[in-house]
């Protein structure tokens, strides 16, 4: 058994719990018909606290899980979107973004809005024109409200993800610098 297997299993468990909570509570949390998306938030958290690779892996699996519960869009579309978003957040986090108390909610806000636009854009390219059929106003509304939901839920989800990812390769890499200790402290608060 490799030392990183247990954290990976914990992350898998968090992803399964995430999709169950999303399917049970997602519809109840709708504000102006827009529901939050826990799965994309988990991908963003993985990118933030695990780096590019963890963001891509967790994004891929969280998206794939979401895809398995959807029927109108092809399997793999959410996986592709969340993988790219998780990796992008991880890459920006490790290369560009400075430490800040607002880093987690801000990354969740921007990452989710980008994920919504990317999902519809990629879907449109792949022949899923029904995604854009509700019009640009609906797309903007979903992007804004879903992003706000992500910002609100980001701290508890980040806390949960960090606990699950303790001891994983990505957490060790990102967690190895003194700068990220401050980040870890912030997320755990």
């Amino acid at each position, binding site marked *: 058994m490799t030392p990183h297997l247990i954290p990976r299993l914990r992350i898998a468990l968090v992803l399964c719990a995430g999709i169950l909570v999303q399917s049970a509570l997602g519809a109840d949390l709708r*504000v102006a*018909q*827009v529901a939050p998306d826990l799965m994309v938030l988990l991908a963003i958290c993985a990118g933030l606290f695990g780096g590019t690779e963890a963001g891509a892996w967790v994004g*891929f699996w969280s998206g794939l899980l979401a895809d398995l519960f959807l029927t*109108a869009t092809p399997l793999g579309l959410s996986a*592709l979107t969340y993988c790219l978003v998780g990796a992008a957040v991880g890459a920006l986090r490790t290369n560009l973004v400075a430490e800040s108390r607002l880093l987690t909610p801000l990354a969740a806000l921007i990452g989710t809005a980008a994920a919504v636009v990317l999902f519809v854009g990629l879907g449109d390219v792949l022949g899923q024109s029904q*995604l854009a059929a509700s019009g640009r106003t609906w797309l903007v509304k979903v992007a804004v409200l879903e992003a706000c939901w992500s910002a609100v839920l980001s701290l508890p989800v980040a806390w949960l993800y960090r606990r699950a990812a303790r001891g994983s390769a990505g957490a060790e890499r990102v967690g*190895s610098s003194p700068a990220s200790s401050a980040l870890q402290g912030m997320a755990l608060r």
Partner: protein
Amino acid sequence: MAVSRRSPRSRYVVAVLVLAAVTLVTIDARASGTGVTSDLRSKVHDVFSPLQRATHAALQPIGNFLTGALDYGSLRHENQVLRSELVQLQTQSITSAAERAAAEQVLAEEHLSFVGGIHSVAGEVIDNGFSNFENSLTLDKGTSSGVAVGQPVVASGGLVGTVRSVSATTATVMLLTDPTFAVGVTLPGGNVGTARGSGRGQPMRVTVVSTNRAAPAVAAGQPLVTSGLRLESFPPNIPVGRVQQATRAPGSAEPDITVTPLVDLNNLTYVRVLLWSAQ
């Protein structure tokens, strides 16, 4: 302050995962709802459905609380409206009972088979649809209960949608607000039209199907029912919605009609799947 540099391995991992996702999309798109990806979805639904049911039951009180908290203002207003409607309905109940009896006699004479004639299965909603780009819900009944793709789904009030996919223990229902949903409706003056979904929370739009008859005179508030024409996906006379607006653009022969669904699609707990298929 930068934490670490992106390694070539990261790029390689991202590229492989993107390729894997694109491959899945391609396989699924080519299979168009059948094949290995559809089987996989079906199996996952079967495995997760007991967990979904348990999670739904456990979290429902929290969900109800959150819904109430998020919709407090509208719930209060709705409560007031309902109180006034109740008073009106109580006074109407005596006359409507007599009218109902007469209508039942008329329906029996017309041999309308849908009135109590179609077998149905009651299903509990275990997932009210969590995607913002998919108008669907999941039921706890599947092929083991006789549910099949394409069957109409109704609730008290009228049409809810149609079964889009089904596993042994679950069924996913496409709601009538989905942009890909279409249903034939009867319009005044013997005309028929097609009502199409326009997205969550938005009214359906009706396209008048050209006939030799005069253009339909549709008024706001008028209820519309399924037309049930030959090869239609729905039996006739299922209530679909109420006309929200009917306007005629200058120079246009047909009116622009928008319809509000009769069923509150946000608060469905139980629905009925009609074990009916187009002949």
